[in-house]
């Protein structure tokens, strides 16, 4: 029986409630965890990667573009925050706004990259992130960015407050994904990803859709980068533009399964959990295991953990 009208709407409402509850459980859980478990930075890193994996989900899961240089927005956010705080002595919240702006400006500059397909886009975005890093870390710009000598923001250091702001960013990101999963706009993005020509023939503005997804995705990374700068307060450009951040977020996303809400969450909790628990115990074999895991994943489960269920026709939130 196909469902119609009211029935479809009721089903949609049920989905949104379920998705939102999952998001709420994660955010509240990470909030409570801070009171129970005292390695705040580990929890903070979890929050960061949860948000980054979902931010990447917005662009990769919904439009099929995989930016290897996603960390570029994160770094732009971190430096957007730092510049405003260092030079204008602005408050941390103003810094967060600057982080968002910095990431969005970079995203607009890089819009032409969306003309590239697949691997070309991935590599070009990585080159772009590296280029931004080379500029920020250049000693010629020492008066502006502090060049390679690193940033110190002890004036605004507030680990507890910034932790909760990170949680708020995570909540915002999760809600974005819930919205995309249950809205016509999200549906249109998936249509673009499946076949952009066909999507145009459904009346979808392909350029507009991709642009919005790209900006949202960059915004998330920029905010996360900003709150990272705030939380950690002393860092070098190498830290803010560490390519491993892109790679981790990508692997978490793919491991769990893109386009879903649960996939990236599972990816972060499982893989980053393993990284923190086992990675500490036997580090020398960890990098090898990680590499092997990635290879096996691509070969045998290219659509992530959730595809174990979705392949059986079960809908995963």
């Amino acid at each position, binding site marked *: 029986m196909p469902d119609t009208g009211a029935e479809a709407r009721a089903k949609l409402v049920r989905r949104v409630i379920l998705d939102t509850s999952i998001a709420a459980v994660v955010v509240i859980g990470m909030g409570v965890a801070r009171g*129970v478990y005292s390695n705040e930075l580990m929890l903070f890193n979890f929050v960061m990667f949860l948000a980054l994996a979902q931010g990447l989900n917005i662009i990769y899961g919904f439009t099929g573009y995989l930016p290897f240089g996603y960390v570029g927005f994160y770094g732009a956010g971190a430096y957007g925050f730092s510049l405003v705080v260092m030079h204008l002595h602005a408050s941390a919240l103003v810094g967060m706004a600057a982080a968002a702006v910095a990431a969005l400006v970079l995203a607009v500059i890089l819009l032409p990259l969306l003309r590239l397909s697949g691997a070309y886009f991935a590599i070009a975005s990585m080159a772009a992130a590296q280029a931004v890093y080379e500029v920020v870390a250049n000693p010629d710009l020492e008066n502006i960015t502090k060049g390679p000598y690193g940033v110190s923001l002890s004036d605004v250091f507030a680990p507890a407050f910034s932790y909760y702001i990170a949680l708020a960013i995570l909540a915002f990101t999760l809600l974005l994904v819930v919205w995309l999963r249950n809205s016509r706009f999200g549906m249109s993005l998936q249509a673009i990803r499946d076949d952009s020509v066909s999507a145009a023939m459904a009346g979808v503005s392909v350029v507009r859709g991709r642009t919005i997804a790209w900006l949202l995705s960059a915004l998330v990374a920029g905010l996360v980068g900003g709150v990272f700068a705030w939380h950690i307060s002393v*860092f070098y450009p190498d830290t803010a533009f*560490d390519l491993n*951040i892109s790679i981790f977020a990508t692997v978490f996303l793919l491991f769990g399964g893109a386009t879903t809400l649960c996939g990236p969450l599972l990816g972060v909790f499982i893989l980053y959990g393993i990284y923190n628990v086992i990675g500490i115990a036997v580090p020398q074999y960890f990098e090898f295991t990680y590499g092997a895991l990635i290879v096996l994943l691509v070969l045998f489960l290219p659509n992530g953990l959730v595809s174990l269920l979705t392949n059986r026709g079960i809908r995963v939130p």
Partner: protein
Amino acid sequence: MKSKALALGLLCAVAAAGSANAQPAAPAAITIGTLYASSGPYASISMPVFDAFKLWVDQTNAAGGVEVKAFGKKIPIKLVAYDDQSSTATAATLYNQLITQDHVDLLVADSGSVLTSVGVPIAKEHKQFLFDVSGTGAAFFTKDNPYIALMSDPVSTIWPHYISDFLADQGVKEGVKTVAILYSTNDFTGTQAAALKGFFERDGKVKIVYYQGVPTTTSNYTVLINNIAALNPDAVLELGYVGNDIAFLRNLQDSGEKFRFVFSIYAGTEKEEIEKNVGISAMNGIYSYVPASDYEYKPDVGMDQKAFHAAWDKKYPPGSGVAFGANAIYGYMTGLVVQQTLATTKSLDQMAIHDAVFGLSGKLKTLDGTFELRDDGAQIGEVTPLGQLQPEGKDKLKLVAVYPPDLANGKAIIGK
């Protein structure tokens, strides 16, 4: 996953509570937490420090533990060490882990400024004193943070002053008029280059004709050397990491260009490593810092350089992967500071530890020279004389200290 982590946390909390109760009656062990990087770009400076620190721990425990004044007895050391794999994000978490989960009594940073940087605010936040092995970043040392002290490298801004002093003194006498400075654009070498530039400009005796930064990943210097040669400077200072110095010295030899005075940081500080990679002939006559691994200070505490080198070779036979050098000295020397701190501190309270560490300032003499702190925690004691690699016998080079005169054990030979 999370529950596992939680369980782990609880376990640690219980353990910590136990040790806290036992404290008046002396803990079973002194826990020292540290990080190291077994892989990635910082592995080559981190592993020698870590291995040397382990050597000190093993030696101390073999002797029944470390003397702790607060309890008036020897207590064994328990070393908790995690691998951050050169990732700052991981290092940040692990510093936190050491402080909040393992409740270490003493916290020792990883090597180098980048991996130390994330630990500085965390240690300050948790009021845990940080034994900073070789993180020289100027941003770490502020008057409002008593929870840090730099063990070995003097801060980058004062380190290189013997180079400019030497050139302005003996150099000028022998006709050195111009200098070229080529540096890698990172915190460590960038600040040294900037400091040198300031010294030369202040003294006004030697003119800088070339002052350029190159990315730290630069691995070929042929064209840069050609360009410098075209300006015909008397002295060339190349400030880079190990990889940069290897490439520079190889390319310099290949190019056939000769300069009267050539300086490189690691030709001396990691002499064995550089020798393996560039060969003796490319290093002959090169100037460098004379690290404690090549200079015999008379220690009041711990082994002298010869004994330590022998102990190192015994524990880590040559060819096992990690070479002896200045970083090994830094690691061992950090152990000695810890040892003296525990021997003098009133309690394991972190401010008491701060007082004890600063109490050693100017008094502690080890194989690394005199340990002396500025009041913000920066190291100013360790003197690094200027040295020159000079032939010793047929196929060996010796790093001869040539400046300042009171530390010199040889004479500088400036090329023609």
